[in-house]
């Protein structure tokens, strides 16, 4: 049963990913990406990483994609007016992507054996994705990165505001 869910979610993810890059209109790409994120959230739930699943939806699908949509609507980029790249470039890109896939798969194929999952037998395995556990790790072992990430956000906000300002000095 689980396998079936896994395969289904995987298919959804891959199909929507493909439509992200092959869609004609940018809005369609955004919508497809949202679907992909939902599929990823489903995968996270399968892995019992509950916190991450929710955070994925809230942050990615909820905030980032909305931002994308705002920009597209603001700049009225809905029309597909860009010239296409020449065919041979697309061909070469596909070949490159294919090579990358083969390399990655070849690198990782057969590296995981059944015996490597001995850890799964413990009962604690179920809990590591829960909010309490993540919270504990975050606030004890990873405290400093956590605090610094707030500085990161601050700088991103300031940067965005500065970049977005209209130049009042120049005519």
């Amino acid at each position, binding site marked *: 049963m689980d396998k079936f869910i896994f395969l289904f979610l995987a298919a959804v993810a891959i199909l929507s990913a493909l439509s992200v890059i092959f869609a004609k209109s940018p809005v369609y790409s955004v919508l497809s990406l949202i679907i992909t994120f939902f599929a990823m959230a489903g995968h996270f739930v399968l892995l019992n990483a509950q916190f991450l699943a929710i955070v994925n939806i809230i942050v990615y699908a909820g905030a980032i994609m909305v931002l994308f949509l705002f920009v597209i609507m603001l700049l009225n980029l809905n029309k597909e007016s860009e010239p296409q*790249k020449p065919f041979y470039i697309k061909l*070469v*890109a596909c070949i*490159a992507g294919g*090579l*990358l896939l083969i*390399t*990655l798969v*070849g*690198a990782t194929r057969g590296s995981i054996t059944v015996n490597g999952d001995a850890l799964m037998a413990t009962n604690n395995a179920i809990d590591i994705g829960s909010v309490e556990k993540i919270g504990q790790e975050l606030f004890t072992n990873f405290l400093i990165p956590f605090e610094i990430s707030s500085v990161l956000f601050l700088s991103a906000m300031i940067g965005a505001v500065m970049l977005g300002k209209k130049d009042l000095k120049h005519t």
Partner: protein
Amino acid sequence: MLDLAYLIPLLPLIGFAIIGLGNKKLPKFLVGLIGCGSILGSFLIVLSLLIGITSGSIPNATTISYFDWINAGSINLSMSFLIDPLSVMMMTIITGVGFLIHLYSAGYMSHDEGFARYFAYLNLFVFSMLMLVMGSNYVVMFAGWEGVGLCSYLLIGFWFKNTNYNNAAKKAFIMNRIGDLGFLLGMILIFVTFGSLNFSDVFSQAPQIMKANYEVGIAITLLLFIGATGKSAQIPLYTWLPDPMAGPTPVSALIHAATMVTAGIYMIVRSNVLYTMAPFTLDIIMVVGIVTALFAATIGLFQNDIKKVLAYSTVSQLGYMFFALGLGAYTTGMFHVTTHAFFKALLFLGAGSVIHAMSGEQDIRNMGGLRKKLPITFWTFVIGTVAIAGIPPFAGFFSKDEILAHAYERSPLLWGLGVLGALMTTFYMFRLLFLTFSGSFRGTEDQKSHLHESPISMTLPLMVLAVLSIIGGFIGVPEVLGGTNWLANYLAPVIATVGEKEVHALSHSTELTLMKISTSLVFLTIIIAYIIYVSKKIMPLPEGKESGIQKLIYNKYYIDELYDSIIVKPLRLLSDFSGKILDNTIVDGIVNGVGKSVEVGSKVLRYSQSGSISNYLFIMVIGIIIMLVINLIK
């Protein structure tokens, strides 16, 4: 007085430094004073040394070391002087005649704007020459040898604004250098064979080592002789000497008559131990000497420039000196050096006085009848001519006769050749005398109005030298005429007695007969010359009208042109080739090519920075793939 020996070369050096540094600022009077004064000082010290050696108060061969000069591995050379009869004799000639010439130059060059420079060079020359004769090892001698070569170049090309003079100076220097190469090789061989370059070491070991390595000995002596031919203008390196009459006449007097050209002879006499052990080289020296003597005399018969006649006469007399050396008569060679210094310097200075009076004219066909206008010059010139002809009791007679006597010992044929050369010498010298001084004036009116006797600063040295030419021969009067051969006894400690031929094998009567024959032939020649040039007033032909053999000889047997085409032209081609092709094209091409290739390479590489982001992304992906693949393969 021996401890003042270092002052002898030092005084001229100081004079050179002072005059050279204060070139434009010192007044002419001061320059002349310093220049002549330094030489006079050296002369006085040398005189004291001479008196010391002859009276025996100074030991015969003193080596004074001043400081260690080269200390490298097995070579240990110190700057040291050797005070012995031979070196003191040369020093006397150099400083004495040199002083007189300095005095003469003060008058001759008084109008020249390079006055201070001239005196500086002259002082430097005397310094180098003194170093040459005073050195106690071959290296100090070589240093002086090079120094005189340099100074002769500086002085010959003194009026450097004229390209011909510069070429003449270059020619002299380059020919000297060729000889110097032989000298240097000889020195190296000496060092390799004997292990040291000090005279005392070499000469004491010479007999054994030379007997053992006969071929090496021949090589050493031959190489040293090549150096001597370059410096003393023997065949084949003699063509430089007539050309540099381009320099001021006192320069010709000092360098080419009295001192520098005798350096080669001095060197051979100093190394007489080596040479007596190598009879083969001595034969070669003898042949070269007599051939040069005759050859140059024939050329001198037809020259029309005063200084050129005297130059060829110098080459010829040098040939005689080498001839004497080749016969093994070292003392006779030195004797002839001394007397030749006197009368040749006198002749050159007299010619300078004539040229000065003629406002620069040097062609004897435009002179004549100067006897009445330039009396002192005329009489001193007569004395010089008589001396060189070898008429008793003037100086030239004794030295020349000694050479001829030794030649007769060897073979009568050589004696005959020597007499022939002497007769030709007489002939062209008297030709010169008659054409210049007697008859009627053949120059322009302008020159005639300027004719005047030279000032006292020029005539005083002439008179002194004339006196010396008269009495100078008396230092070597042979026993046959009742004198004791003072010079031979004086130089005896220096000349080795191994196989030496100072002792006459001739009987006194033979010698007298020879003397009488040669003297009477000389008188005959004078009469012939008188008849040709005074009584019949046969003029030498003007330019371009000679024919046949006369033309050949007048053009110096075209030897200069021969050298030019054989040696100079190929060298020029080679240097052109090196300069234009090797240097410009190849080397510069490589250097520039490196720069150009960088430029071209950067032009090509510039296109990789296209600015297009999609290109960059693509390259990034390719990079990732490559890294992963490499990781995978490892």
